[in-house]
């Protein structure tokens, strides 16, 4: 659409992607640009505050909420490659700051324009990847926050269906938690282990080459368990496949 101004998008890569797997951030950047957005990556971003929020530390969570709102509220949209961090901004921030007269309206305004990336690409931008090919079988895990707090289920599947050669296999218990739960997985590691063990068995049972999900936290948990079990399943974030990066190293594979 020449002449029409491109929507501006502030990309929040999330703290896990920043430290563990930058490829996901670059894949998101690429897809947003292909979808016709003017993308910026504000330098003032760190973490959305979810660990504090889920630990009951509302003071620190509110501080991070205000910091993030200040850094991102100038864009048309705020997009994240994570359902749980997006849900923190969409639902958590307005709740946290509801009683703060200076910030309540700003939190609500920001929540209204914040999106998880696959839902943003599909629902808002009407984007479909073109010319992506990947001859492999994959299975998809629905991460809980994205699924239940934001209604993300059809969008990633619709986008993945555009990848030529990719066979998407159903995962039994695809909507059952993987046992990550943020700090839960280390605070109650034995329970978390029992949960992720069942998840890994279900993933292995599909016989798929690749596991896909939309949240790096869940992916690290499942990939780490699959690797410990000696499974050969390769794990990627959905956007990596959509951006044509699945020919590179999967999570836990060393860069060549």
């Amino acid at each position, binding site marked *: 659409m020449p002449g029409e101004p491109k929507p501006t998008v502030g990309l929040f890569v999330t703290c896990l992607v*920043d430290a563990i797997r930058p490829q996901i951030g670059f894949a998101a950047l690429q897809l947003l640009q292909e979808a016709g957005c003017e993308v910026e990556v504000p330098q003032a971003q760190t973490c959305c505050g979810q660990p504090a929020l889920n630990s009951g*530390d509302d003071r620190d969570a509110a501080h991070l909420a205000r910091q993030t709102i200040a850094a991102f509220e100038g864009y048309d949209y705020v997009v994240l490659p994570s359902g749980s961090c997006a849900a923190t901004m969409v639902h958590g921030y307005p709740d946290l700051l509801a009683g703060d007269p200076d910030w309540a309206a700003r939190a609500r305004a920001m929540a209204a324009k914040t999106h998880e990336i696959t839902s943003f690409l599909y629902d808002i931008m009407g984007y479909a990847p073109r010319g992506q090919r990947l001859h492999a079988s994959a299975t998809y895990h629905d991460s809980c926050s994205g699924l239940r707090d934001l209604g993300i289920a059809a969008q990633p599947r619709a986008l993945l269906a555009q990848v030529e050669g990719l066979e998407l296999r159903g995962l039994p218990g695809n909507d059952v938690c993987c046992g990550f739960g943020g700090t839960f*997985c*280390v605070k*109650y590691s034995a329970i978390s282990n029992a949960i992720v063990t069942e998840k890994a068995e279900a993933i292995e049972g599909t016989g798929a080459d690749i596991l896909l999900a939309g949240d790096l936290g869940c992916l690290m948990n499942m990939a780490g368990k699959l690797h*410990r079990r000696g499974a050969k399943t390769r794990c990627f974030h959905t956007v990596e496949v959509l951006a044509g990066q699945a020919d590179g190293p999967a999570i836990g594979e*060393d860069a060549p």
Partner: protein
Amino acid sequence: MTAPLKAPFKARAAAALADPVLKIAIDRTTGNAERKRAAALAAFPEYESARARGQAIKDHVTAHLGHYLELFERNATARGAQVHWASDDAQARAIVTRICLAADAKLVTRAKSMLGEEIGLPHALADAGIERVETDLAEHIIQLAGEAPSHIIWPAMHRTREQVAQLFKAGHQPPPAAEDPATMVQSARRVLREKFLSADIGISGANFLVADTGATCTVTNEGNAELTTTPPRIHIVTAGIEKLVPSTAHAFALLRLLVRSATGGEMTQYTTFHAGPKRPGDADGPEEMHIVLVDNGRTTMLGDEFREMLRCIRCGACMNHCVVYRQIGGHAYGGTYPGPMGSVLTPVLDGLAASRDLPHACTMNGRCAEVCPVGIPLPTLLRAWRRRSWREGLEPAPTRAGIGLWAQLARRPRLYRLATRIGLPVLRLFGRGGWISRLPLAGGWTDHRDLPRPAARSFMDEYRARQRPRQ
């Protein structure tokens, strides 16, 4: 009162995780429950509107609790029942025990009631020297085993069929002739039948307290509640005040949700409204009916952030769909009520200091709220307990220090960048290939799974490096 939390939560959970038979039992029951509920809802297209109505009924009663309590008391009294008020578990136990002793009761039959467990009635009756016979089949099993319920609908769900056969063999005189379910049930019927007919007092709970009729309602699939409450001279009902509904029609609106969510049935086999004692001319029924209305923390919840929990109709769907419950079962929770609803209620009943693990032992995946037939936002309520625990200083020092340090960094983006620039290469030293399999202070992760080795350079640094040549 619930059983004191003997071992710490993590020790109880570890014991449960180490029990392979328990896992088989949990998977059988919760798996069945999940499938049957899904099938029942698939055949109930008006579920969402029924759910909204159920929630509205509960919220209406909660908002006008005083009015409906008075109405219920007036109508129940008019029908000849005696209404007693207990502000806490100790008062409730004292009232029931007093009624039993005044009647010189030697044998009491009891139909399953989680409120009875909540107020510690089994122990109180034992302390008063009164023989108590549990008449619900599952309660009969756990009475033989000397255990507490592990689920609010299937109290003995932690026991496999095979284990039950052993318990009956040891506990029934004469023992059942065979181990098939039909023979075992027959044996239990024979043992219980004598007790039904010789009991001095029958004690039940109530699924609903109907304000405009003064009746109490019990639902069962075994008919044991009717045999518990009808033949003895005295019927005592113990019920939480949140069980109130305005009318019988409202009770049925909630019953449609309760039965489908609990067992996947459309209706319970036995649904009985107990409206006062035997009237002149009645063929049977108790001579006295006592209704003990128990607060035990409920009016406190009315005024705080846990108010929505008063909607709970005790269907058990939240625990059937909980990934944590399905690994550790009910006993590991240590309170009367297990699973997500128990993790909200146990801190109310036993105090947060004794139960702070429960609201934390949750992945916040939200499936419990999704299946709740009255729309209780369970993860939000669990987070409210976490907030209180943090505010009251109950969180362990390492947790506070860890979150505090991380927050100090996250609140300073430049310092945070510097920390990742220094930290990531250090972390990478622990890796072999693309994985870290052992990391000091991170045993919670690496004891069970490998950690993907972090990037050499963070996204933010890499992004800036890629931008630079263009500027």
